[in-house]
């Protein structure tokens, strides 16, 4: 499942995408994110599956604008810490 969590600000809509089919539940992203927006657990959007996958924390979904904003510089953009930390390449972003 491709899970998109996003926000809208003055310049458009932005999304973090987690591909739960690629995610192995290693939790590297949980440690890598400076704003700690990830968690690993049962996939709450796929209740019939037992696999543990990463997702954006429920209480972090409303504040992505402020949590993800600092990792979205205007230029000289380094790779996002969450994307860089994910070995299976399950995390991508839309900006």
């Amino acid at each position, binding site marked *: *499942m491709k899970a998109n969590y996003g926000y809208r600000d003055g310049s458009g809509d932005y999304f973090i995408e987690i591909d739960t089919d690629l995610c192995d539940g290693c939790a590297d992203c949980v440690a890598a994110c400076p704003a700690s927006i990830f968690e690993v657990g049962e996939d709450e*959007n*796929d*209740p019939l599956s037992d696999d543990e996958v990463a997702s954006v924390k429920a209480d972090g*979904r*409303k504040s992505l*604008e402020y949590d993800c904003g600092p990792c979205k510089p205007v230029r000289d953009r380094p790779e996002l810490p969450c994307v860089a930390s994910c070995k299976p390449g399950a995390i991508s972003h839309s900006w």
Partner: protein
Amino acid sequence: MSAQASGEKKEFWRWKEYNWKSDEIDWRKGKIITAGVDVGSVSSQAVIVVDDELYAFSNQRTGSNSPGSAGKAMMWALEGTGMTMDDLHYAIATGYGRVNVPFTDRAITEIACHGRGANYMYGGTVRTVLDMGGQDCKAIHTDARGKVTRFLMNDKCAAGTGRGMEVFADLLGVSIEEVGDMSLEVEKEPPPVSSTCVVFAKSEATSLLRSGWDKEMVLAAYCSAMAHRIVSLLERIGVEKDFAITGGIAKNRGITRRLEKELGLEILDTRYDTQIAGALGAALFGQALVKKGKGRKKSLA
């Protein structure tokens, strides 16, 4: 004397609250009975499913007391069926208030539930589901069995949702059930209001009314702004046929007609109440979980 002082204040945002039960199903002969309760920001529904078939439901407003609304919705769905909570093998909560429903065994996200519910209501050909609720909007891709393959959710905002529509109905003094049709009664489509943000759109609408626009034109401008916003959300995820809408906004033809036009495709029709999709999906997950042996029914004290 103002309308309020004379006691004649009409509540234009009010929509019909009701319950329903099937005459064809005898639940006493059923093997697995499950319930789904969807506590949304604006409305709450409870659905009872017997052996994978919809048996009964209720649909009402969520009050300020969210666990209370869940209980009330459940009792209303049970009303007249002769069934009690003890007859349920599993109960699942979904929606905003899902973590706060005391009598359910488990909570499941509304994304999973709307995908599953739409699959039942519209059939296995549905690939894209747009859940337009009272306070937010989610785009979901599903497979033939109703499993979510991709979804997109944005941070919470009432712009372009059911609650925004209610505010407009109240502002213009038009019943919420009529705003959609009324917005289609314009000769020429007006330019959309510049923001779907309820607060901005409301003040813009007020100034349009003062400048001489009639209600139909203002509603058309708002509905069309809402349709634009939904299309921009859908563009990100892509629309695969068949396309269905769940939630209260699916009943608003002013939105659905404009969406069909902008997307260039038809939106599926259903004989079911589109507002029950989430609770229906939850009850259907209950069926699947009981069959998987995952039914861990709470003792009902």
